[in-house]
């Protein structure tokens, strides 16, 4: 269907490029003809505008390539792919051996404008590479190249020659009108070309001692701000034309050319430059894995995905995860980050990841078992690397794509959890892997890896639920259901954190403390070995375990509790609002509510643990409208008031809980060290969003107290304080 939509159809004016009518001036446009500097500067400005229109998502064919200077230059370059051949001489118009006249105006075009055009095309080629490597065609940017080579085979150094020649030529002409404007455009392009260097900068993640050089970006912003103040003369006639659509190898339907205003173009480019600058300045400041994940989730995955150009997202992805899977180009890798992530939750000095500590029990063939266990653990860690890679790759995508990728990751992480459980249980049969130390409960395997995976999976599940609100995927009548399901998931998360994850860390601490008893009893070299192990663990593992416990108790548990109450309260609020929706019965649905529930919950339906609640349980847990329907008159008012009060209490609990979390965040040094980043901006934003959401719903509930029951309402949603929590309200019909 898509192909058919864009297929050429001979004889159909809307679909046949052969029917495009061109004026003689479009056909006979002579790119090598000399022009005054005011015209050249105007062309440069318009070229930048059309380039930005392409960056903004349109096809090259209707933006930059529709400029005859660009098209003629690339056509000539195609002859033998040498930069010297890339000039403006139209060989169909001029005989072989033709050289443009030697006038000053001719040099403005054939030196200055040529240098600029070549430079800008190379910038385009850097962006094209970003787009083709990591962005989605058409969804993020359109990369159809019309079989032209945008200097992709040339290095930046090779194209800098004509650009530098143009700059030095123009620097010698300070009194020519519009020289300043033209020179600024050239300098801008020269700075933008350095993006290719920035993209390959290396950062010693978590240990960076120096900031990255962003002077070229800073300078670009200054140039853009100055360019914003200039006005230009009119463009040469037929400079931008649909000639290219007729002339080049075009398999696409006729389309109108598009450009942007200078203000729009400068705004977009300035946004790109400053966003990249921010990325390059912030990443070296990240101190640990926890801060990195916060940065990825909030700055990249949310803020940048919403506001920055697709090119910035692509730049980030290539800068962050390199071809060799190293992170930011140095020692850190996807695998090492995965280990850090596990360690900062529950996998600390666990014997499963220390092969030397394995003393195979319960078998006569210890060597074979040891090799078998080693192979299983290696494979499991490889799988975790791959899953973690998928997790890290999500953040640089547009928000719609992020949700789709997260949805796909659910299946991956679910099966990973299953595999991890099988491996950990198998290993525990031979005494490998840490045990939980609980009073009255015999040694149970702690299943640290599976527990970590389960936690990650729960977070992803919740994110898929809540981002559905951001993307307006749920109808108002589904809102209570999805917030209820989110609350269920937060309840599981809370239980897992407060239960097993806390237990794993505290058991390890107890185990290290209990070593003293073993040391007392041991003798000779064994005593020494135990003593040295305990010393190592006390120095290396205990601080991490204590930090993990602080993070779980003071931060992760209260946050999951807050989120649970918030989702539950919003779900109940929406149900209360639904009670007042009185519309004529227009139910013409061809699907049963149960089928609709199953379809809506499909992304989570294949998950083994936690199992999707069956439809009946959903109905039982969300029965406010049904409950209220049983009452009338005074009894109804009393019941309504009772439910409203109970929801208000929940919302107040949420607000108090937020204060507690923020208090812990400010007071607890361990939490500060681990999570404080960028002036604790993310947490402050979260606090503001949650409290404001609660206040909005408290207002809606207050309004419910005053309804008489005779009004006719429709349930609607409006933009909230958080993208994940729009505000549902009643609109009078």
């Amino acid at each position: 269907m898509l192909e058919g939509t864009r297929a050429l159809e001979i004889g159909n004016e809307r679909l046949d490029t052969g029917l495009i009518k061109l004026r003689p001036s479009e056909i006979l446009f002579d790119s090598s003809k000399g022009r005054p500097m005011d015209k050249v500067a105007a062309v440069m400005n318009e070229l930048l505008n059309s380039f930005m229109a392409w960056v903004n998502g349109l096809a090259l064919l209707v933006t930059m390539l529709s400029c005859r200077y660009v098209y003629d230059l690339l056509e000539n370059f195609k002859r033998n792919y040498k930069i010297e051949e890339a000039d403006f001489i139209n060989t169909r118009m001029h005989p072989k051996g033709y050289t443009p006249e030697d006038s000053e105006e001719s040099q403005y075009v054939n030196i200055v404008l040529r240098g600029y055009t070549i430079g800008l095309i190379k910038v385009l080629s850097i962006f094209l590479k970003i787009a083709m490597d990591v962005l989605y065609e058409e969804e993020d940017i359109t990369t159809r190249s019309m079989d032209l080579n945008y200097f992709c085979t040339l290095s930046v150094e090779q194209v800098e020659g004509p650009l530098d020649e143009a700059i030095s030529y123009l620097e010698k002409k300070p009194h020519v009108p519009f020289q300043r404007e033209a020179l600024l455009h050239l300098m801008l392009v020269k700075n933008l070309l350095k993006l290719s260097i920035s993209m390959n900068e290396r950062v010693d993640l978590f240990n960076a001692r120096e900031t990255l050089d962003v002077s070229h970006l800073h300078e670009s912003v200054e140039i853009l701000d100055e360019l914003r103040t200039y006005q230009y003369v009119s463009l040469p006639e037929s400079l931008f034309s649909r000639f290219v659509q007729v002339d080049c190898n075009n398999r696409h339907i006729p389309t109108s050319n598009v450009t942007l205003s200078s203000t729009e173009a400068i705004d977009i480019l300035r946004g790109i430059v400053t966003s990249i600058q921010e990325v390059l300045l912030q990443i070296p400041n990240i101190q640990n894995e926890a801060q990195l994940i916060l940065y990825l989730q909030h700055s990249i995955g949310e803020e940048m995905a919403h506001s920055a150009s697709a090119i910035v997202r692509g730049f980030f992805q290539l800068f962050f995860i390199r071809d060799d899977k190293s992170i930011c180009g140095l020692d850190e890798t996807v695998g090492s980050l995965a280990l850090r992530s596990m360690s900062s939750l529950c996998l600390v000095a666990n014997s499963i990841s220390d092969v030397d500590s394995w003393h195979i029990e319960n078998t006569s063939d210890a060597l074979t078992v040891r090799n078998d266990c080693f192979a299983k653990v290696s494979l499991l860690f490889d799988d975790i690397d791959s899953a973690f890679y998928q997790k890290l790759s999500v953040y640089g995508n547009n928000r719609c794509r992020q949700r789709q990728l997260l949805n796909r990751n659910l299946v991956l992480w679910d099966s990973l959890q299953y595999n991890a459980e099988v491996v950990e249980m198998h290993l525990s049969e031979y005494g490998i892997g840490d045990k939980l130390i609980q009073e009255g409960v015999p040694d149970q395997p702690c299943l640290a890896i599976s527990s970590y995976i389960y936690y990650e999976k729960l977070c992803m599940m919740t994110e898929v639920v809540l981002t559905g609100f951001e993307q307006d995927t749920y109808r108002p009548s589904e809102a209570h259901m999805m917030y209820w399901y989110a609350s269920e998931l937060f309840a599981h998360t809370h239980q897992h954190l407060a239960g097993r994850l806390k237990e794993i860390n505290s058991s390890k601490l107890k185990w290290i403390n209990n070593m003293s008893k073993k040391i007392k009893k041991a003798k000779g070299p064994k005593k020494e070995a135990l003593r040295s192990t305990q010393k190592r663990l006390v120095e290396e593992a205990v601080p991490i375990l204590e930090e993990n416990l602080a993070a779980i108790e003071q931060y992760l548990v209260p946050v999951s509790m807050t989120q649970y109450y918030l989702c539950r309260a919003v779900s109940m609020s929406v149900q209360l609002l639904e009670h007042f929706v009185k519309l004529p019965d227009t139910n013409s649905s061809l699907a049963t509510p149960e089928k609709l529930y199953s379809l809506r919950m499909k992304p989570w339906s294949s998950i083994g643990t936690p199992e999707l609640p069956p439809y009946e349980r959903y109905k039982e847990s969300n029965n406010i409208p049904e409950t209220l329907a049983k009452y009338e008159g005074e009894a109804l008012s009393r019941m309504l008031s009772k439910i409203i009060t109970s929801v208000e209490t929940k919302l107040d609990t949420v607000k108090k809980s937020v204060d507690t979390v923020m208090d812990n965040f400010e007071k607890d040094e361990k939490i500060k060290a681990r999570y404080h980043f960028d002036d604790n901006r993310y947490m402050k934003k979260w606090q503001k969003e949650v409290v404001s959401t609660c206040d909005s719903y408290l207002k809606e509930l207050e309004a419910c107290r005053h309804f008489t029951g005779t009004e006719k309402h429709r349930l609607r949603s409006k933009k909230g304080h958080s993208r994940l929590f729009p505000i549902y309200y009643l609109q009078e019909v």
Partner: protein
Amino acid sequence: MPVANVDLIDGDLRYYSYNPASKDQLDQISELISANLSEPYSIYVYWYFFHQWPQYCFLVSEKSSEKILGVIICKVGPHRDVRMRGYIGMLVIEPEYRGRGIAKKLVKLSIEKMMEWDHVDEIMLETETSNAAALQLYELFGFLRTKRMHRYYLNGSDAYRLILPVLDRLATRIGFLDRIVDVPAGVV
């Protein structure tokens, strides 16, 4: 259930099956669509639909006229070999006839026929996120927004994928379903 031509009268309007032998109908359909939809469809799109699924194109005219004032074009086929999916490709009503429930009737007719003739598991379509009227129409029938697609249309706007669940198979993720399409011998 064998496929049979539809020809119904509802008030002063006639709802009927597209006749593949009629060049006039094809011309009228493409003109109607071209005048009312933003995406430019080539003749190949119509051939694609009408060659394989002529039975799933329904037209509306005044009882006493041959002039087509509304059309719905659909298809049915296996989705990734595990589900039978109905798809609503295009729906257009002449502007002056809108608001009379014609689109609703055409959608209902198509859905019923896809269920009756091909036992579809689901019916799917895409629509612009800003097209409130289309969303309201389809959601009335129980279609759910299952996915938002970034810059899906040529004009740069986002789309929703809407799905109507018909049979229970739909609620299972694709990877967990058995194939419904026979694999030819020798092909793995």
